[in-house]
């Protein structure tokens, strides 16, 4: 057996980390764009489009605005990418060489907040007015979507009586699983930053949001980090709410199928809805998200 260091290195760099996560992320991005195009009656981009977009961004020069903190400007996308890659490495998906450990759920939740913090800081460090508005909106939205998100995760953790991801994965299905899944699904569009909660990157209102002054390799890293975040959230949904079946291969196939259905559902909702205001999203999440989270936690405590 490989030593623990090798296991974690493989988990971070190959599967389910950088390379595997990037491949899945590119697939999900393509599904989003192609399905949105088809729903709108358009042809849509070809299969390899997100890959070539990424490679092209790597070949562009980086134009750094004058008078800003260059160190922070460059470190933020690296930090965002590192956090999502490390978070992917500790997900107990089939084929992960690294094992799950006690408390890795808490570590995962911390890692999940880093991309959001990096986006908020990026909005402020570039000193662009659009970036600042986007950063403020993203921070507010984070306060909103974390109500159902954390409520769902805490409910499942309470149900499994553990903070270890493999225990949560193996926990038997119960009514709490369904309620927590509903709460989690409510939070997903806001975490993906897709309609009706595409408030931080509202192109028609704030141009390009927090990434407006980024170009070249830092922008490529931010885009990759966003793709990995999508993979991470889909993986979390699968790990928490989709039971394993039979062999690892069958579980992997089931996971892939459910993930594509989930992405298609989020895309369909995104294509047919319009954007809410920040206060509207806040109200929505604290009312309905709060109700769903409360229902899940009550079911977990009682069960």
């Amino acid at each position, binding site marked *: 057996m490989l030593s623990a260091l090798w296991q974690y290195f493989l988990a971070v760099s190959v599967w389910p980390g950088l390379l595997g996560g990037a491949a899945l992320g590119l697939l999900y991005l393509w599904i989003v764009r192609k399905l949105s195009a088809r729903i709108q*009656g358009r*042809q849509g981009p070809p299969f390899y489009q997100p890959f070539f977009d990424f490679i092209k961004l790597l070949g562009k020069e980086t134009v750094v605005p004058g008078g800003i903190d260059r160190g922070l400007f460059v470190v933020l996308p690296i930090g965002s990418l590192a956090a999502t890659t490390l978070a992917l490495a500790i997900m107990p998906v089939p084929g992960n060489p690294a094992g799950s450990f006690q408390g890795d759920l808490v570590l995962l939740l911390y890692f999940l907040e880093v991309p959001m913090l990096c986006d908020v800081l990026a909005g402020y460090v570039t000193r662009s007015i659009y970036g600042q508005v986007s950063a403020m909106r993203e921070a507010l939205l984070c306060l909103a979507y974390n109500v159902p998100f954390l409520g769902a995760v805490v409910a499942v953790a309470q149900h499994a009586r553990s903070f270890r991801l493999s225990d949560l994965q193996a926990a038997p299905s119960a009514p709490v699983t369904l309620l927590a899944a509903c709460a989690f699904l409510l939070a997903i569009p806001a975490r993906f930053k897709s309609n009706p909660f595409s408030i931080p990157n509202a192109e028609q209102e704030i141009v390009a949001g927090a990434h407006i002054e980024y170009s070249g390799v830092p922008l490529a890293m931010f885009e990759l980090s966003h793709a990995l975040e999508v993979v991470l959230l889909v993986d979390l949904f699968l790990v928490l709410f989709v039971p394993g079946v039979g062999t690892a291969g069958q579980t992997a196939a089931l996971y892939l199928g459910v993930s594509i259905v989930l992405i298609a559902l989020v895309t369909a909702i995104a294509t*047919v809805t319009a954007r809410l205001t920040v206060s509207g999203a806040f109200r929505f999440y604290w009312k309905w998200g709060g109700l769903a989270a409360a229902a899940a936690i009550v079911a977990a405590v009682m069960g």
Partner: protein
Amino acid sequence: MGIFAMVWRNVRHAARTRRPNDMPSRPDGFRGLIEHEAPLCTGCGTCAYVCAPRAITLATKGDAGVTWTFSAGQCSFCGLCVQYCPTHAITNPGRLPTVTGDQSQLRVAHEVPSRPCAHCGRPTVPLPREVLQQLYDGDATDAAVAEQALCEVCRRKAASRHLRDAFIRTAGAPGKAGV
């Protein structure tokens, strides 16, 4: 629930997108790039006069003739030159322009050479033969054909001779060129 019906219809049917080789055709009378036939041009300058963006220019080269220049990069595609050209030298077949990296490819220059007048020898741009046939519907009179290569001064003299001959019958051959 019209939105769901629309989404379902869009997803089931093929996309409405046209492929690059299947683009919508041009409507009838589409104003594309103009065509200029130098053999039909008399260098009158009407097209340059009506061209608002000054895409058409006529430059005289002394006694050698005129040069008709057109720049597609300056054209508004309004069609006034086609409408006003008296000899129909400028036509609109509806040809689409093409993209180019080099602006000089958008310019066209045609020479309209002048010839010496058949009577006085002064260099002039004569009435094109095809226009003559058009004017007489293919049935030009001998006198008209003989006067085709005259300059405007000699043509005026020939016209006033025809007028005199029409009113005053004289002995001898009427309408002989050069009398």
